[in-house]
């Protein structure tokens, strides 16, 4: 029996617009994943610590405020420091095109802008989450 993919969905920064985070959390849960929603106002430290405690395979960050170029590199750096390099990080929100190469360069490839079908996100995570042993 294969184990469920474990996903931490987090809202970093000060923004409280959590519609997207909550809809995705439910969609992933309905797709058979184990979803842990951190709630609002999480620092990168809190998010990485949640991923560690929850033995997460995937971290989903929801960012609409424009703070992604500050938050994402910090999360990636902390994951590396904790030896969690194999945790897949995906982000959803308002991410300008010009930032895509910079995010790709730090190892984030799953980037979903407004209008992305939920199924596309489910498929991406299913295909890219680290293998559970």
């Amino acid at each position, binding site marked *: 029996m294969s184990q469920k993919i474990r996903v931490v969905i987090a809202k970093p920064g000060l923004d409280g617009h*959590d519609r997207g985070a909550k809809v995705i959390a439910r969609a992933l849960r309905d797709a058979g994943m184990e979803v842990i929603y951190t709630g609002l106002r999480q620092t990168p430290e809190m998010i990485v610590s949640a991923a560690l405690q929850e033995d997460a395979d995937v971290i989903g960050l929801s960012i609409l405020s*424009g703070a992604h170029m500050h938050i994402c590199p910090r999360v990636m750096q902390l994951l590396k420091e904790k030896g969690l390099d194999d945790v897949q990080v995906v982000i959803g929100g308002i991410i300008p095109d010009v930032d895509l190469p910079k995010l790709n360069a730090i190892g984030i490839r799953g980037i979903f802008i407004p*209008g992305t079908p939920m199924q596309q996100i489910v498929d991406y995570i299913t295909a890219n989450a680290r293998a559970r042993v």
Partner: protein
Amino acid sequence: MKSVADRAGTRKNRWEREVVEPALRKSPERKGPFTTISGRPIERLYTAEDVEGINFSRDVNEPGEFPYVRGIHPTGYRGKLWTMRQFAGFGTPEETNQRYQDLIAAGGTGLSVAFDLPTLMGRDPDHELCLGEVGKCGVSVMSLADMERLFAGISLAEITTSMTINSPAPMIFAMYLVVAEQQGADWKAISGTIQNDILKEFIAQKEYIFPPRPSMRLITDIFAFCAKEVPKWNTISVSGYHIREAGSTSLQELAFTLRDGLEYVQYGVDAGLDVDDFVPRMSFFFNSHSDFFEEIAKYRAARRLWAEAMKNRFGAKNPRSWQLRFHTQTAGVSLTAQQPYNNVVRTALQALAAVLGGTNSLHTNSLDEALALPTRETATIALRTQQIIAHESGVTNVVDPLGGSYFIEKLTQDMIDGTLKYWEIIDGMGGMVEAIERGYPQKEVAESSYLFQQAVERKEKVIVGVNDFIQADEKPIEFLYIDDTASEVQLKRLAELKQSRDNDRVRRTLAALADVARGSGNTMVPLLECVRAYATVGEMCDALREVWGEYEEVPVI
């Protein structure tokens, strides 16, 4: 008892039988579902039979007459057009001041300030959670010094200003009052609005700081302060906009927002205020989403629900307490990142719905707002959209042009009935504060947003350019990119401010604020002193955090 329309032999049944059924046999209807964007089923046709239950002289009446379904002004927009109020703010106070000067030059008739997230959350830019947030989603205002920069060269005696600020509303309002004072403007004469609506923050937008009860006290303190000192100020803008953006239905937006309004009135009355002393200065703020007729019905229903509740539930005697005034913003959430020029059309239709619903003030979104804050050019097109409706379409020549439409009147009545059902549930919980503490409206909104998303995935709801009519070869548009310059400027200024001001005076005024917070005096009084001493938003909020603590929600998904 069966309603009139259900009985066999009505004109509508005859028409269905003799005209529609043979026609359907030849060519069936499209697959449907024929529902509003909120999932409300819509019938094929509405006739006089659908409105037989409505007593028009009592329940609808004429414009300017109770219960104001047809509008609060007897002359509609023939007297005064709605205020064209474009929400704007980004970067440093100087950059935003320039945008305001542009909007005024382009014919905008009111200002509307968007603050950045640190300001909205009562944090100074050097707090760890402000990483990358300073000046991004709005303008950064840390202290009185920034407020002076924001309104430099703009006469507060002449312009009306709306400020979207909630938890730190008393601090920001105090800053505005001190700038007005510096300009020599009379507090008794100035006008504008602070959003100051904490309940919808707990329900939807989540920019709360303190727990619900002390938050409600800050609001009733403002009601009491303004009734005496700033009588023309709109002390609150009870907002459905954010509830809708978070995914509610049109009905939920209406029901929860007005129930929030009742909660504020109740808390004001409980604080010892007379209804007619503060309710006339309460205003509302609704969304205008894409379902044209449902939105129009929502605004018409809102006016009657409020008028009847103020008169019957609270015994208000002043007609100004009965008259619901509202601002509208087109639905940000309906804008698409794909084929963004289509957003101009969406916004125009939504704006038209708001106007046909009798809005008192309007913000139209810019085409690029699914991607970024608007550029100067796109913000101008948004304003022009309103001007075209106002001056070219002809809809402003007549008051409530859709009044008497079977469909609109029936839909208005349905929105009223649905709202009263929601109010019964919330009243049964003990009120809106209690309902929020139980997570009730939060759960309702989360459920609706998920149902809508599933309908989009199944293509039951078509979003042009997103799940249908997709264009593969889209060219990207240029948009506003806000870098970190504002953050650097504001951080440097914060350090300089703490060097140059009288820090003893700051400490004394903050201590006085905490004392009043622990007791029962009006918090606006010590806040004005903190502001005059150039205490920062973060410092003032921290002084209150120490007394009242911070609210943390249990997330509902």
